[in-house]
């Protein structure tokens, strides 16, 4: 289990530093540089990840002294969480570590939460583990329904959850889908990721997942860490992943984050990206194909245009001529269209649209 690995790695970190100190050597540990210059696109895997530039954190360097102490404190505290089998948010961790460094010192171990975020990332990178493995939870976001079951060991209990029996609300994706959780009886042909909750509710009401034998997931906007892990794990069961978003730079960016990962979380690499995913729509070309959509476009905002031209600059996007063509259309027409617009003529058209796209293999890479 990941937790066991995390536990060992935390202890190992402690042991290494401890031994250095006993030998009279300056306490230090190595981590990988997370700055822009060390973010690479891995052509082979198809995801963003960190390069090889390393950085050393040294306790005896004044500028790193405090953060070094804080990182070790986080390591020790999360090791206790693992031991006690308790979870908390990074805010909870912050409160656990917000105490005075000494009676006569006007300084706390942590003064504000902002201090801890970067250090948690340091620890993740240095040890090659995820914060979820350290029992640090993030806000839940994302809903699933479809033919599969989940065995959830939590709070000393074990439950089996059937994702075909979640009614109108679906199953909410937890922050960690790796520890104490097993996916069973996955009986789907593919996975459909739908940007907006409203469209997910449409498909759920239409029993789309039942008719199509698929799993429908909405990240409700940008995908959370948990949702990305969930899609990754399902994709690992050889299920194709299709993504369906608004036709604008924002929606497309949601697709690309799912596919290649984001710059901010580049350190997570392949575990949080799904390079094999495909983009179903909505595309600019759809406007020409489905004539009723022509009247339903909206004017693109400045930020959409800006984001579109940024995306043109990313090598992992501009290597696909189909995408360059789409982005150029945005820059030229300055228009966009929401996925909700597909309900313009007929509410249930959404399902037909998706089926037709998949059947005709009409997707973008």
């Amino acid at each position, binding site marked *: 289990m990941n937790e066991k690995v995390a536990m060992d790695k935390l202890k190992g970190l402690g042991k290494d530093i401890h031994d250095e*100190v*006993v030998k*009279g050597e300056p306490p230090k540990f190595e981590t990988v540089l997370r700055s822009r210059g060390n973010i690479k696109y891995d052509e082979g895997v198809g995801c963003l990840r960190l390069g090889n530039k390393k950085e050393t954190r040294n*306790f005896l360097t004044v500028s790193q002294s405090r953060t070094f102490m804080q990182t070790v404190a986080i390591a020790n505290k999360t090791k206790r969480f693992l031991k006690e089998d308790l979870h908390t948010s990074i805010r909870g961790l912050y409160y656990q570590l917000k105490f005075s460094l*000494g009676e006569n010192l006007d300084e706390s171990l942590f003064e504000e939460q902002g201090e801890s975020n970067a250090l948690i990332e340091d620890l993740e990178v240095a040890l090659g583990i995820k914060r979820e493995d350290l029992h640090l939870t993030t806000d839940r976001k994302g809903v699933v329904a479809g033919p599969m079951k989940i065995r959830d060991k939590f709070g000393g209990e074990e439950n089996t959850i059937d994702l075909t029996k979640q009614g109108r609300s679906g199953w909410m994706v937890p922050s960690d889908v790796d520890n104490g959780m097993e996916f069973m009886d996955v009986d789907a042909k593919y996975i459909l990721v739908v940007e907006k909750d409203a469209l997910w509710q449409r498909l759920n009401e239409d029993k789309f997942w039942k008719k199509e034998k698929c799993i429908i997931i909405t990240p409700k906007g940008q995908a959370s860490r948990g949702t990305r892990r969930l899609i990754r794990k399902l994709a690992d069961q050889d299920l194709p992943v299709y993504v369906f978003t608004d036709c604008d730079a924002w929606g497309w960016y949601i697709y690309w984050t799912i596919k290649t990962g984001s710059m901010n979380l580049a350190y997570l690499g392949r575990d949080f990206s799904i390079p094999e995913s495909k983009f179903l729509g909505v595309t600019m070309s759809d406007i020409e194909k489905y004539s009723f959509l022509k009247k339903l476009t909206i004017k693109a905002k400045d930020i959409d245009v800006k984001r579109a031209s940024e995306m043109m600059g990313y090598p992992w996007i501009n290597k696909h001529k189909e995408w360059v063509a789409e982005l150029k259309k945005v820059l030229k027409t300055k228009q966009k269209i929401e996925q909700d617009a597909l309900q313009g003529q007929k509410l249930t058209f959404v399902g037909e649209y998706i089926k037709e796209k998949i059947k005709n293999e009409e997707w973008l890479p």
Partner: protein
Amino acid sequence: MASQETFKEHSVAEFFKKNKQMLGFSGKIRSLTTIVHEYVTNSFDACEEAGILPEIEMEMKETGKDRYLLKVKDNGPGIPKKHLGKALGMMLAGTKFHRYIQQRGQQGIGAAGCTMYSLLTTGKPVYAESGNGKEIIKCNISVDFKTNKPVLTNIIEEPSDFRGLVVEAEFGDVKFEKSNYGVIEYLRRSALVNPHAKIRFTDPSGEAIVFPRSTEEIPPKPVEVQPHPLGITAHDLLDLSKAESEYSRLSSFLQARFSRVSLAKVNELKDMLPEINFNKNPKNLSWEECEMLVQKFKDIKWISPSADGIIPIGKDLIEKSFVNVLNPEIVVVSERKPKIYKGGIPFVVEAGIAYGGGIASAGKKGEVMRFANRAPLLFDAGGCAITETVKSVDWKRYNLKNFDEEPIVVLVNISSVHIPYVTAGKQAIAGIEEVSDEIKNAVMEASRKVQVYISGKRKKKEAETKRKVIRRYVNQLSSDLAELAETDDEEKLKEKLSEMVENRYT
């Protein structure tokens, strides 16, 4: 000849009456400081020549709007009756004018200028008492502007054991103020470079301030030196030749009255100036001949003038005074050899830097104290070579980020028989290249020592700060580390870490 002289003197008094700003009488505060300056420097000079430790008492009373009565009393040798009028009532009286001697007051217009100012602004003469320890003379002194002759009235002469000079004068169009340009600041700076003097000043509110004596050492008597050919003008040469009574031939006059003029040099001059008869009586030299001679002086290779006549304050005394007056954290004073400007005038620059300590607590920042022959220069800072030079130093190179914000006082004193003042107001040093360069070198010499001190101190302080910062984290780290590594080594880790921090930052 007589009429010419009368005309000359007439113009001198009239000229300065019309141009009193040239003597420092411009602005109410400045005029008052100028007056105090003239009396104080006269007393210092007189005491120095007589080998007396000066003790000056001054009292100022407000008598009306912008009107003050000033009483100055010193313990000097006093002024003999025959000179008293000239000293206090005749412009350019010549008691000092043609003596090549290093003194604070150089042009002999000072105290008489004050008398003039008193007459101009209040119509009242100056009252003086002068005693030599046996007899005293008391009188009123005024100036006859038309003839530039002193006028003494109400003369009383009687036996007395008083020794010294008392001057009482009332001035209008002046103002007492406790500012950087005021009387008290002037006296404070005077005291700084004249630690052998004791000055007591009672201000118009009756409050007395005493600048005590901090050394019993009387500065050496200034030596009168002969002028060097490169240091004089045609006008000087004409005056000297007219006054000559001992030598009747130009060639012997030149050899006898000027330094470094030998027979060989006179022969060189003869070759260059066949139109001049070197056997003529120097009294008969014409203005044109003087001009030609001074012109040719510049073409001859002279031995540099002797710098014997120059008396700097001295490193020890500057240091001592700085400590007494400012109580700074560090004092550095440069020691420089005499240099020469305009090819013939020797001068010595002393630069002292005081930093931190009492300067910081007094809130002083980036102060430049200018002195010429130990007399403070308070005015015209902008046009003074000292200010310009000090500001032109790249202080960042000396670990002083922003000169104007640092707790630093830079003292520069120029000593010379002829200080190159910008004007007769004697408040600013002219930007002559040799002088500016030497000021810069002196200031930089002192700055380097300050830099070494500051950077050493800064490094030590930085190391201490770093040590303190890291030490705060040792306990927490040790406890977390011991637990994380699953050992009981907390105490051992603490010890080891503390040791490492100490070793790294000492």
